[in-house]
């Protein structure tokens, strides 16, 4: 009886295990392996190249990392900007809406508005924001608004300027993901123990004091979770960039996740793209270890 049960369990996990091995474990290892070779589509291992690709990426590729000229630029820098701004802005907006809308008559309504972008594709979001950012003030809402508010204002091509475009794409991502932050923070906020907050009111704490000294520290677990999630999203970012800007103008919106695709599939440099992939894996490794530690605690 017992042995039969165990046999069944192995059958249950077999399909998933095969899928994980074939699509995630083995390909990841192969990519790391290919990063030490020069190669093309047909043969990714034409010639052993050692750490040559890594050397070139970190010292000689202006599209990837350029630090000898101010401001520093390249895909790695752009990704760091994503990692700084995406978690910060989504958590701040999400928290502001979760706390301010709590208990209002229109709470469900405004939360739906904020959450809807989570349902639509990055492709649709890209079209939406290319429209918003359009440099013609008769078409693009952002330029129209600024011209209306400041008559002196010269319409800006938000996605056409190298200094601006990365932030323009990041804001589209903030628009998409704030709904997630809001939902998680709102649920956590509603679950806070009311007695403690009431005790603080009786002790005469002002609203600001209650927020900074009480509410915020008690929300640290969901906030940490969201920061991790948004860092992962920033590191994996590809589709918004692919549809909205194709990495342009002049590499201004290239991020690591997109560079891998471009080098491999547009430029056919398999080894080089793989090396960028390996660098991305190094960047996600701390997050993986963190997640594993968190999960092990609950096992």
């Amino acid at each position, binding site marked *: 009886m017992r042995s039969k049960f165990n046999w069944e369990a192995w059958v*249950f996990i077999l399909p998933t295990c095969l899928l994980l091995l074939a699509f995630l474990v083995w390909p990841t290892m192969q990519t790391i392996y290919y990063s030490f070779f020069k190669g093309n589509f047909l043969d990714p291992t034409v010639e052993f190249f050692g750490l040559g690709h890594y050397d070139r990426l970190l010292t000689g590729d202006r599209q990837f990392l350029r630090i000898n000229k101010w401001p520093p630029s390249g895909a790695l820098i752009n990704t760091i900007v994503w990692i700084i701004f995406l978690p910060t802005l989504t958590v701040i907006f999400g928290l502001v809406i979760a706390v301010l809308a709590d208990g209002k008559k229109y709470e469900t309504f405004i939360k739906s508005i904020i959450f*809807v972008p989570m349902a639509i594709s990055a492709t649709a979001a890209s079209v939406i924001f290319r429209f918003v950012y359009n440099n013609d003030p008769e*078409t693009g809402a952002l330029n129209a608004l600024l011209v209306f508010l400041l008559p002196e204002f010269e319409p800006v091509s938000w996605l056409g300027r190298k200094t601006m475009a990365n932030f323009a794409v990041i804001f589209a991502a903030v628009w998409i993901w704030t709904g997630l932050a809001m939902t998680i923070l709102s649920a956590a906020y509603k679950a806070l123990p009311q007695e403690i907050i009431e005790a603080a009111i009786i002790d005469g704490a002002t609203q600001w004091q209650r927020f900074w000294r009480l509410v915020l520290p008690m929300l640290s677990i969901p906030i940490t979770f969201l920061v991790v999630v948004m860092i992962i999203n920033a590191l994996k970012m590809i589709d918004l960039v692919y549809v909205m800007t194709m990495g342009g103008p002049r590499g201004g919106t290239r991020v690591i996740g997109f560079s891998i695709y471009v080098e491999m599939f547009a430029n056919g440099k398999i080894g080089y793209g793989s090396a960028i992939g390996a660098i991305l894996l190094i960047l996600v490794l701390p997050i993986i270890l963190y997640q594993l530690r968190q999960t092990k605690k609950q096992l």
Partner: protein
Amino acid sequence: MKKATSNIKNPLPLSSRLIAWTNRGFVHFTLLILGLVWLTPSLGLLITSLRSRADIAQSGWWMSIFEWNFNIQNYVEVLNNSDLPPPGFKENFINSIIITVPSTIIPIFFAALTAYAIVFTKLRIRNFLYLLIIALMVVPLQVTWFPVLGMYKAFDITGSWFGIWIAHSAYGSCFAVFLLRNFFIGIPEEIIESAKLDCNNHFQIFTRIVLPLSLPAIASLAIFQFVWVWNDIMNAVVFLQNPEKYPLTVGVQRLLSHYQNEWHLLAAGAWLTMLVPLIIFFALQRYFIRGVTAGAVKG
């Protein structure tokens, strides 16, 4: 914050009441602005999709309130468009359905079996498998694409429906196992123990007891996976490599690169891709939000 304002019931000096009143006005105002910022981009594109090409060229969408001249001609045009090399938008729509339905069912079935084995059997590797899945959820898919394509070439399934189904199944299964495992763990041990008296094997317990009990979780998961696959563009581009099989998202991207600034077509196209996810969102909001919040780490 309902409780926080309850002390205002006592008669307070006029000045404090004024401050409270301004505070509340400020809160409403902030929420109004944020709501507008989140609503305007997609609303603007929706209005644009209902205006004629001539009107769009003449004035911004915000002026259309004064003109009130809307029709669905753009949608008809984009669906019957013959300027682009085939497939048309109709075929894209059908392709999206062909891709999405199996890519939702297959991983959920396999993942449910795996989650069952992890939770309800004494399988020796069950904790290891679960931790592996947690780690693989964070791995960026870009890193796996090229080696997977190599494997597809060996099996000659590049550009086949089977190829895209199985890729989505593999990439979706980590999160699916994660979500279902966390749900199954809440099913009381006694239910399974007593089921063992009536059922001959684990598969019977799985289909008769565990699956019916976990329908809410499976619903959330199915909705999440469906929308995720529906909205996907990168996997379709990488694995299909065949315009005749491209889904709606790629269709919109093709419109975008072909027409650049023909906003009447782009707006209608983008809204057509958003239609299905938005219907799902508004019809099944509760399940959808639960799935998306739980799926925060996937991507």
